[in-house]
């Protein structure tokens, strides 16, 4: 076990835990944001630099501070390590810079984008970004590419987090897309214009932190905050069958995996559950999804009172959060 102090809060975590995960165990404001790190995808993280923190004391044995800010998703904790996140002005400044870089080429088409309302980049820009932009040039543009009838690709919105590439690598039996070209012009693309049509490919939609990969069957159907999420399951031979349904009235508009409070899906779902089962009779509905009340999705969203009572009790007693129900931020 290693003892690590993050923004003055000490916690003991197993050896090899990353700073980001240690911070998530503590929870609250001190958790660094992450755009590319994804717990269930191996080798993810390290690209976006939004989770950078300052290590003021390396470890008990070697108390020297680390010379530069480190990416907390890739840096394992050491015994006696002291980390500053929101208490360090340097980190806040650097993070604002990273947000500015991410938004440099990102089109401001949130009014059109289907991801708006559940977009990690929107949250990041809102919480950590600056008001204006200093970028005066044209934003990069790409030729429109059709990658099949299920997934809509908007390359202009991509922040190159590589999450979808990891999904293709690790979940799908054969890798059919990757990142082409380099630097400013790099883009995710299907190899030789091949459509993505294997079992689990739909999870790229869920892992995408922005609106670059969105559900084509949900395209422009409704804004996220006019739909009501509920947890549901069905017997599926290909996946766990545990999903989140997004209702509008009595219609299921969209099926997604269950994102937890960090916006990550633990149980990936298959394409059959995602695209083909859009009738209420296909599903066993468990309960309304717990929606963070600061989220725009919580507009006119009323949860069961029992859950709310449990939540208030938990907050009052300062108990750790139960990990069974996913939270949508």
């Amino acid at each position, binding site marked *: 076990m290693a003892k690590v102090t993050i923004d003055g809060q000490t916690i003991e975590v197993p050896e090899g835990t990353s700073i980001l995960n240690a911070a998530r165990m503590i929870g609250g404001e001190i958790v660094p944001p992450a755009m590319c790190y994804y717990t269930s995808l191996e080798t993810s993280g390290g690209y976006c630099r939004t989770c950078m923190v300052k290590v003021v004391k390396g470890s008990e044995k070697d108390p020297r501070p680390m010379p530069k800010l480190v990416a907390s998703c890739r840096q394992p904790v050491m015994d006696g390590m002291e980390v500053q996140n929101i208490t360090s002005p340097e980190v806040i400044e650097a993070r604002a810079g990273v947000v500015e870089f991410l938004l440099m080429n990102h*089109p*401001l*088409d*949130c*009014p*059109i984008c289907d991801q*708006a309302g559940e977009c990690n980049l929107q949250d990041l820009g809102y919480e950590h970004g600056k008001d204006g932009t200093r970028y*005066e040039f044209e*934003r990069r543009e790409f030729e429109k590419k059709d990658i099949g009838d299920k997934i809509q690709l908007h390359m202009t919105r991509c922040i190159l987090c590589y999450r979808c590439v990891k999904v293709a690598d690790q979940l799908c039996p054969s890798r059919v897309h990757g990142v082409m070209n380099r630097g400013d012009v790099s883009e995710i693309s299907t190899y030789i214009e091949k459509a993505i049509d294997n079992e689990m490919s739909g999870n790229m939609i869920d892992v995408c932190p922005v609106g670059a990969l969105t559900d084509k069957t949900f*395209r*422009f*159907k*409704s*804004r996220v*905050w*006019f739909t009501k999420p509920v947890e549901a399951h069905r017997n599926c031979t290909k996946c766990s069958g545990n999903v989140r349904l997004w209702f509008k009235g009595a219609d299921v508009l969209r099926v997604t995996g269950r994102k937890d409070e960090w916006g990550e899906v633990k149980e990936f779902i298959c394409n059959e559950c995602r695209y083909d089962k859009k009738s209420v009779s296909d599903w066993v509905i468990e309960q309304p999804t717990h929606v963070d009340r600061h989220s*725009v999705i919580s*507009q*006119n969203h009323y949860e069961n009172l029992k859950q709310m009572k449990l939540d208030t009790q938990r907050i009052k007693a300062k108990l750790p959060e139960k990990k069974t129900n996913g939270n949508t931020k």
Partner: protein
Amino acid sequence: MQSLTNRKKVVGKKEMTWVEKLYLPAILGGMRITLKHFFTKKATISYPEQKREFSQIYRGMHVLKRDEKGAERCTACGLCAVACPAEAITMVAAERKKGEENLYREEKYAATYEINMLRCIFCGDCEDACPKESIFLTDRIVPSDFERNEFVYGKDKLVETLENPIDVSIRQTPEVLEFKKNKKLTHNR
């Protein structure tokens, strides 16, 4: 309790005098007040023949604006509907097809857009929420009607016509007008 206005009159139960029993002085007193009002200035006007001057910040019937090329500005982003405290706005989005670029400004547009004028409280929050400078409140009055469902205004009543554009520059702050001069921004192109 102490009176606030000093206009309070205590009603007694004492018997009326002979003059009071005639009631004539009281009736004449009442008639005098009525007659006086014949000669005072009227509180009402005969709308629509006569119209009052509107305040610059008057908030009346909505308009959905078109851009300089005549394309509809609204992209059905739903921010007006989520900002609306009376939940008066509903919309259905659709994707712009090829060849409709002159009709709709962005790749998504509002196929239907409805405001329930009976629900609307004319607070102007939709105008504040709009990121596309599409919806504005104008100095036009919502006319009265006999049917309730006539008050659900669709795009036919809300979108301005090309022949008869509605000037909303009065509703835009100097900051907005300054911002619009910067043609480098995609918003203004």
